[in-house]
């Protein structure tokens, strides 16, 4: 059943978004601009300095681009979990539980945000440019890594999004708090983690596994050792981190849903 329902739901959402054309086009443009403005910030900073955290502009652009594509894909599918606090507060989450489909997939297809493709496209352009100019040593392994890194990053971001959203089962108004790890994670992963320090780095790089979205894959692509001293194989384990994060997110989601109490009206 599910394999016929989900395509139908997704198709309906896509048709819905296409009906207000001007608004959709502006939304798409807004996403392209949002992604490009982050690029402008990096370029403005590099117009004043030669290196950030020990990395050159081309190297930072590789990280920025992987993070951008990964975040864009994650936002496309998991971004509507931002609305979960509204579902929980108003009690409409009950309706989702009553349907004979998984609660998480239902929420994820409830609003496929097609406009997020704008972000993905803008980041892909930069990714192509950065890979071509950053001096990557191309082997079958680095090609495979270059292709998979943004997708693996998207899985990690998706897991972060799900975990952040589960907080809303316990806290009433948690949307902004969740944003601090999702959008905050996006801001963090666009830069080398050497820019940050102390517990902020530990939190965003390893507790929220942000370092594995863009930083470590970029090190592997660029053939650079980690200035912070992690062994070389760490740069290649992002797919494992993604699987582990997705598993943690799945378990937490089940735990949270089991403890959900309706608002009672």
């Amino acid at each position, binding site marked *: 059943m599910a394999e016929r329902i989900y395509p139908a739901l997704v198709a309906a959402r896509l048709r819905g978004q296409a009906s*207000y054309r*001007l*608004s*959709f*086009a*502006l*939304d798409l*443009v*807004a*996403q392209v*601009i*949002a992604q490009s*403005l982050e690029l*402008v*910030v990096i370029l*403005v*900073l590099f*117009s*004043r*300095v*030669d*290196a*950030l*955290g020990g990395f050159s502009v081309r190297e930072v652009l590789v990280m920025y681009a992987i993070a951008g594509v990964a975040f864009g894909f994650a936002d496309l599918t998991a971004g509507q979990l931002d609305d979960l606090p509204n579902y929980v507060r108003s009690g409409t989450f009950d309706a989702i539980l009553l349907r004979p489909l998984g609660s998480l997939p239902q929420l994820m297809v409830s609003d496929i945000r097609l406009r997020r493709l704008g972000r993905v496209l803008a980041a892909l352009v930069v990714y192509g440019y950065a890979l071509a100019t950053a001096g990557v040593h191309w082997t079958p392994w680095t090609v495979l890594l270059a292709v998979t890194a943004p997708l693996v990053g998207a899985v990690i971001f998706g897991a972060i999004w799900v975990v952040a959203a589960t907080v809303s089962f316990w*806290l009433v*108004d*948690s*949307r*902004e*708090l969740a*944003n*601090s790890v999702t959008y*905050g994670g996006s*801001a*963090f992963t666009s*830069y080398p983690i*050497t*820019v*940050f*320090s102390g517990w*902020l780095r530990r939190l*965003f790089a390893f507790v929220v596994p942000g370092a594995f979205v863009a930083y470590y894959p970029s090190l592997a692509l660029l053939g650079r050792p980690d200035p912070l001293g992690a062994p070389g194989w760490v740069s290649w384990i992002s797919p494992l981190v993604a699987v582990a994060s997705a598993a943690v997110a799945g378990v937490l989601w089940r735990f949270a849903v089991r403890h959900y109490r309706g608002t009672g009206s």
Partner: protein
Amino acid sequence: MLAGATTNIVFGLLRIAILTAALKAANGTIADYDLAAANSYVWLGQGLLGLVGLWGQFDLANRIRTGDVVVDLYRPWDLHAAQLAEDVGRAGYSLLTRFLPPVVFGAILFPFQWTEPRRWPLFLLSTALALVTSFGMRFLLNLSTFWLLDNRGVIALYGVVSGMLAGLVVPLRFYPDWAVAALWWTPFPAVLQGPIDVFLGHGDAWLTLAHQAFWAVALYAIGHLVLRRAVRKVVIQGG
């Protein structure tokens, strides 16, 4: 409430880390910003962001889309002034919940450049003008619903560019000179960079205040005219 302030602080931490890394690479100073000034800039920015409502409320747009605005237009009040009053009230509350937490956090835990005592009144005035300017821009965006019906795209676009143009992400002085000059022809710097410049003593405070006052008044006047035109084309749907 606390969650919002926490989010502002987390983003402040990320932003000051990036700026600090840049300052280190540039031997301590970029365009009049040293570490203390950069900290004041980031934490004031994170606080002002909520106070002036940079990404503020767009309830009026919803009321226009649903048609509820007809009730607002019925009432014996000036809708424009009433909206401004509501926004000033919201800002007063945000002063405690949104402005103070990041600024106090930053001032206690980081090197922070304070303003000279005689500048405090100017900073307050500048912040008030920033609020009215921000309101003026948001009011016009709300009114655009009268013509577009669904203006979420416009609002999304505004949300994306306003932070950058107002000087939230990087101090405007970091941009190339031609870009800075062009930006000061727009109302955006009046919303964030203006009050921060007055606080830090960057540039002539009176000039900054004049820029802000001009845009606060101009946007209010434009809003008034646009509202008059919009009311003329109201179509009451169904009933």
